[in-house]
């Protein structure tokens, strides 16, 4: 009985479960955020007058554009954090790629039992809370933290190095958090690489660098793109890492949204900035999709 049911409807189930999940937990919140971004702020519960309403008078939609106009009027206040977010997210992605590529290569080229152990090791940091890992990092980087204490003790430095509240501490936090997200897709594309290709290239006299440039890199490009997206997208909107590890100079859009939401109590403007942030994030995704299609044809 069940078997017949699954044979008949299994396909639909497989398709509609994820669709239902995504519409419930991704599309609806997104639509609500767009709704709030076009609403008028007020002092009430909730603190905005919804643009889209289903009430006694039926369905009404009266968008207010003031929130986007306000961002436009004060663009100087928002541009710098936006540029800063993109800068920090971009270099975090570059650093992740720099460290992840050799690691992924090593894992992909290892013998089976070792490979599994290495993969588990890559995933292991996820077993502890990211917040705890950030506090551990603070314990390392602080002026009186482990690293400075050791360097002072060893006589290498005389005064503690200021590592916290710098770009360096942000990149450390980003790397610690996002490195596995870069390693895994790289590993997935490198492990499928056919050894015969590399041997053939070597037989024909290609140097290591040439093999890497003409064979390995192009074939692992989908993994590189996937890894970069997986790191860049959450990094650009990151809130916790710059809040804990960064100083005021590392102001990112995540904190700006926090400020609009909690300090100005302006949920609509906060939503509008978040929508703009999503637009910024979508650009590289669209570009990557475009690249993908190019690659296929």
């Amino acid at each position, binding site marked *: 009985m069940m078997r017949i049911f699954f044979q008949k409807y299994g396909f639909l189930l497989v398709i509609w479960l994820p669709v239902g999940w995504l519409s419930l937990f991704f599309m609806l919140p997104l639509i609500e955020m767009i709704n709030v971004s076009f609403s008028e*702020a007020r*002092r*009430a*519960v*909730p*603190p905005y007058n919804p643009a889209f309403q289903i009430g006694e008078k039926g369905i009404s939609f009266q968008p207010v554009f003031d929130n986007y106009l306000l961002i436009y009027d*004060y663009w100087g*206040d928002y541009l*710098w954090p936006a540029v800063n977010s993109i800068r920090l997210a971009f270099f975090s992605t570059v650093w992740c790629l720099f460290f992840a590529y050799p690691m992924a290569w090593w894992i992909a080229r290892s013998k089976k039992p070792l490979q599994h152990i290495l993969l588990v090791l890559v995933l292991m940091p996820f077993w502890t809370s990211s*917040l705890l890992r950030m506090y551990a990092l603070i314990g390392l980087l*602080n*002026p*009186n933290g482990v690293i400075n204490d050791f360097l002072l003790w060893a006589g290498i430095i005389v005064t503690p190095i200021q590592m916290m*509240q710098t770009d360096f501490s942000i990149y450390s936090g980003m790397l610690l958090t996002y490195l596995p997200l870069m390693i895994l897709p790289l590993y997935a594309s490198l492990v499928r690489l056919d050894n015969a290709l590399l041997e053939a290239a070597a037989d024909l006299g290609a140097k290591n660098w040439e093999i890497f440039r003409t064979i390995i890199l192009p074939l692992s490009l989908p993994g590189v793109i996937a890894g970069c997206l997986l790191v860049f997208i959450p990094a650009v909107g990151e*809130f*916790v890492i710059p*809040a*804990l590890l960064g*100083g*005021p*100079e590392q*102001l990112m859009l995540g904190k700006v949204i*926090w*400020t609009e*939401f*909690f*300090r*100005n*109590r*302006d949920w609509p403007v906060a939503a509008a900035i978040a929508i703009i942030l999503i637009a910024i994030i979508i650009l590289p995704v669209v570009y990557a999709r475009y690249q993908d299609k190019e690659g296929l044809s």
Partner: protein
Amino acid sequence: MKWGFVVAFSGFTAISGYALAEGNLNIYNWSDYIAEDTIANFEAETGINVTYDVYDSNEVLEAKMLAGSSGYDLVVPTADFLARGREAGAYQDIDLSKISNAKNQDADIQGQANNMLNSASAGLVYMWGSTGIAYNGDMIAERLGDDAPTDSWSLILDPENAAKLEDCGIAILDAPTDVLPNVMTYLGFPGTSTDKAHFEAAGEALSAIRPYLRYINSSQSINDIANGDICAAIMWSGDAFQAAYRAEEAENGHVIDYYIPKEGTNLWFDVMALPVDAKNVENAYKFVDYMMRADVAAENVNYVWYASGNKAAEASIDPEILSHPGIYPTDQAKEKLFVTPVYDTKTDRIVTRVWNRFSAGN
């Protein structure tokens, strides 16, 4: 007030949003803001099952109240946040006749809070305190001599002093509404002003000492000043005493003290209030009544080192706390204390902009 907003951010997910059965009470209070056994004693005495959650910033509490259906029956916002929340219709009036111990309340303190709240039935002041300067006397004296102005905002706000203290570390609260009005007082403007020019002048004064600041953060300085990583910080009174206590516990040789600057400072009041959609209202009243008992209130003060809104409690409060001018200000200091007005939306935006410019350092 305590710890980072980040911890609170993670606490977002920990909403206990239901309370249907009789005999429950859901309380949402500041972290480290109650004696260790108060809740257990209350449960033992009344049989009411208490769920006790904590937050560490007014903003987090406010967001939950404005979103509605928080599931909490009793919360403790600071008066200006409560005033705004009441305007939004997020809180209900309390019926003082149901709280027999309300007679223990300090009429003067409650009166000042009521003025700010524009109502006599918004809630009862739990604790109150000031914003001032916590400092490490030895480290300051090393750099500024024995006549260092450890009674004035100029210790930090005068760029000359700030420059000399840069190497031992200065920090400032990340709380614009508690810092900017005080900088205005230091500059000779009224701390209660909502004039844009005054806020901007305060922002410029802060920018002048910006290069010498270690950081702007509301929670980090407690540990750092206790460890000797920083030597002076604009802090809330209770946090400063928590730092002093930690330094004493650690026996690291650092002695931390706190003062209310002679130019004056703003007072704040944390008020026990009932959300409009509280489900266990009767139990909330029972709890407030319990908290208003003189002995219970005194135990809480002896634990958290903030001044109580409870006058009758003073008989059982540790004399060291009662006689400290940083906690219970002298009559002379009281004259210079002020209560900031509840800002409107436009002023909020001015305050945030001035603050962001200063903290970004441009």
